[in-house]
């Protein structure tokens, strides 16, 4: 047994050629990483310097960051973007998750059709979408009668559902891919059979068995939608809604440093959310590891 264990260890040692290659690989990786870091962090660093550099008196000042919350219109536009993001995510998940589960479990032959439909927004420019919306809203049935009220409600400036619906279409390809990857990574059909066999009803097995392993995929889909909605400019400006991205551009027309500071803060918010999601998704693994450590101890 000892001999076997020793052989195993010896067998695990890399051959000499591999050992020689390793330093080269490490150098290659480091150079690639450095170039990537310069590519991403360089412009950010320059932008950050621009936003804090006091051109009149020299030195640095953080006025654009500390005073940003008192700028008129910021909170309104940011709140509107948050509400739109929330509405988009809810509509998207309510629409996508049951449909994808149904297709995956019961109607796999419709999978190519669903995939094509979900990826189609990638080839439709937002300008075309906006033009389509104008055409629909300006058509006969939506200009008078009961449908006109609905059309009007959809364009309510406090929460323009029409924009949220447009965002659902825009984010569909990315969210679909995220959820699809999650669904492909688990054997849904067998999990369903196992749960049904144990006596679970469809609602129970959806909530207790299917959704928990899809949690990370759903979070990713939601995050992608959130990031896209927060940064989307074209649709909102064409449809004339002052969302956060539109406000940044407008505010930046009078103060370039403020615009840069806001862009960096917006990026920061997105990163923080990404980290939070990553931590949340990784919490199960962490729990498992701690259990293993406890058992080993």
């Amino acid at each position: 047994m000892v001999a076997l264990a020793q052989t195993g260890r010896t067998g695990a040692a890399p051959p000499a050629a591999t050992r020689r290659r390793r330093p080269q690989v490490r150098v290659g990786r480091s150079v690639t990483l450095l170039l990537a870091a310069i590519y991403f962090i360089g412009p950010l660093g320059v932008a950050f310097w621009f936003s804090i550099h006091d051109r009149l008196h020299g030195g640095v000042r953080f006025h654009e960051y500390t005073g940003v919350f008192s700028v008129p219109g910021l909170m309104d536009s940011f709140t509107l973007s948050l509400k739109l993001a929330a509405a988009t995510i809810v509509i998207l998940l309510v629409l996508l998750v049951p449909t994808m589960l149904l297709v995956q479990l019961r109607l796999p032959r419709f999978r190519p059709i669903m995939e094509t439909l979900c990826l189609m927004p990638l080839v439709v420019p937002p300008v075309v979408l906006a033009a389509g919306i104008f055409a629909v809203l300006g058509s006969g049935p939506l200009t008078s009668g009961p449908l006109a009220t609905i059309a009007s409600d959809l364009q309510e400036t406090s929460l323009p559902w029409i924009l949220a619906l447009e965002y659902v279409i825009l984010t569909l390809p990315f969210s679909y891919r995220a959820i699809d990857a999650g669904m492909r990574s688990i054997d849904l059909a067998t999990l369903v059979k196992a749960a049904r066999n144990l006596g679970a009803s469809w609602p129970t097995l959806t909530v207790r068995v299917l959704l928990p392993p899809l949690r990370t995929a759903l979070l990713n889909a939601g995050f992608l939608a959130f990031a896209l909605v927060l940064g989307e400019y074209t649709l909102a400006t064409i449809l004339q809604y002052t969302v956060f991205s539109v406000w940044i551009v407008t505010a930046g027309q009078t103060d370039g440093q403020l615009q840069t500071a806001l862009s960096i803060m917006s990026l920061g918010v997105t990163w923080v959310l990404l980290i939070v999601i990553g931590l949340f998704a990784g919490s199960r693994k962490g729990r498992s590891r701690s259990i293993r450590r406890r058992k080993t101890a």
Partner: protein
Amino acid sequence: MTAQMETRPATTSTSVEFVGVTRVFGSTTALAGLDLAIEPGELLALLGPSGCGKTTALRLLAGFDQPTSGEILVDGRDVTRLAVNKRDMGMVFQSYSLFPTMSARDNVAFGLRLRGSAASARRARAGELLDLVGLSAHLDKFPHQLSGGQQQRVALARALAIAPRVLLLDEPLSALDALVRAQLREEIRRIQLELGVTTVFVTHDQEEALSMADRVGVMRAGRLEQCDVPSVLYQRPATAFVAEFVGTMNQVPGVIGADGRVQVGTQALSVDGPVPAAGVAVSVLARPEAVLIEPLAAVDARSPSDATVLVATFFGAVTRLRLVRADGVELLADVASHRAAELTPGTAVRVSLLDRPVLVRASVPREAEAEHH
């Protein structure tokens, strides 16, 4: 109060009956009028090649599919149209089917939770069952922290936790390596006997079926060819398919003599079962262990039924020899490995069959037989 007391006691065994069950998929008949009765507490294995209908039968019994016609009775009650979640049947699947976000204990307790069992009772019951399958040290581990064999043990405990009327095993060992498979095979049988739960076990591995089951049903093309205890299945196969599928079987040409015995080369053997008319050409069915061989010396006279060793394959205690007779008929013979040294490839040998009643069947070309089925 334990969870087991809240549900049905596991020791209450259940009978199962398939009555003329047929399942047709488009132009394919997966199951053609299956009639099969499973006794309470019995472990019945359904054995057959891929596409023979064994898994379809299990799916119909579990409730995952509906038969085109026929009835499935559980304790005499027709459950053919009963929803899968109302059947009280525990199932272990071929692929690892543990819920990935639940610990081993939570997986086992899942069915009890659905039945409204109290938290303390279901935790206790889950602990008992994981102890039964030898995993009491892994209660809080998640599926990704368990090996394949451990996962299937948890799946078994989960299936047993609901005190199922019938335990269904759908090739649960096929994804495991040989050593774990052998261990788990014994454990499943031990637990099944301990709990006395009626069990249907689907497999394409004859060794598994013969070693575990009280009875084995051999299926082919949607039909049950033979259902009997393993020893009978091995020693008295009802059809040529069963003879060839279960174990290894030689088919040696012979002719029925006037005395009702079958003539194989220079040897006359009595026939087990109905004797065909005199003069009829038959195939004599003989297991490799019933083929006797003796090395021939250079001076011995040769006969057409003498053979030459083609290949010798070492299997531990026995060595299997592939022989070819002078008339071109190939045979397999098992000899004790200590004799293998004198039976190297190229050695001329005299072949005879063990002198006991043999099974015969009319010599039908295999192509014609396949068309018949």
